[in-house]
């Protein structure tokens, strides 16, 4: 009985990571939640995924967002929205620049004359302020167009990518890079850099997509 317990203990984080991925997939794609007042003869039609259930429950919140002072200003004063959007894009530029600089250094594609840890630490500071800028201005912008973005699948995908990106940076990338890139296997270092670039490119691309959708 000791052997399985020691394996679970030795790979606790890996098991938790796999469990979180599995639970997320089940909640997103498996119909589990009963629909209220459903009259269909087929019982499977009276179930929705937890993702859809949570989305339905957020309707009132998004309606309320449009009535807040930020929502009213964003909707009625185009110049204010445009100015905040400009700052939002500058924040994203800071964030994206820091991600590309640090990941290019990890992949050995550039900045080889500067010590890796120095680039990673400085880029992370820029990343933090870029993220703070993008999120604070993003909340203002979301209030102004809350009624529109609620129905846009791409908006929710952006939120998923953003949350994944933040969790990825603070719970996976930074803890791993604190060990020093030289102490990581080449496979891990490359996977960290490639997945980081993919997540943040997706956040930027879906963000721009919102502007052209709906």
């Amino acid at each position, binding site marked *: 009985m000791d052997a399985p317990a020691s394996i679970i203990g030795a790979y606790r*984080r890996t098991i938790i*990571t796999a469990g979180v991925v599995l639970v997320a997939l089940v909640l997103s794609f498996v119909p589990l939640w009963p629909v209220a007042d459903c009259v269909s003869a087929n019982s499977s039609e009276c179930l929705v995924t937890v993702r859809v259930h949570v989305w339905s429950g957020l309707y009132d919140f998004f309606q309320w967002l449009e009535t807040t002072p930020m929502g009213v200003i964003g909707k009625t004063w185009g110049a204010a929205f445009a100015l905040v959007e400009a700052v939002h894009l500058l924040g994203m530029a800071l964030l994206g620049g820091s991600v590309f600089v640090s990941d290019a250094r990890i992949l050995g594609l550039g900045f080889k004359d500067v010590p890796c840890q120095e680039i990673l630490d400085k880029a992370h500071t820029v990343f933090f302020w870029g993220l703070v800028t993008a999120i604070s201005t993003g909340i203002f912008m979301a209030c102004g167009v809350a009624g529109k973005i609620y129905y846009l699948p791409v908006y929710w995908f952006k939120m998923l990518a953003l949350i994944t990106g933040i969790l990825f940076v603070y719970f996976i990338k930074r803890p*791993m890079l604190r060990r020093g890139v030289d102490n990581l*296997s080449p496979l891990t270092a490359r996977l960290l850099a490639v997945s980081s670039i993919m997540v943040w490119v*997706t956040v930027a691309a879906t963000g721009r997509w919102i502007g052209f959708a709906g």
Partner: protein
Amino acid sequence: MSEDNKKGKKFDDLEMASIAACGTVIVFLVVYWATQIQSTYSLLSMAYGW
């Protein structure tokens, strides 16, 4: 890279968890963007008869 890693040292827990998370992210995003590109191609082919 360090000598241990060059020799293929076994991954520890945090490194395994990172590889699992990175792999999931990469697979999910590749599938998502491939689906988007495919649907765009389908729309264009319907519009222009490609």
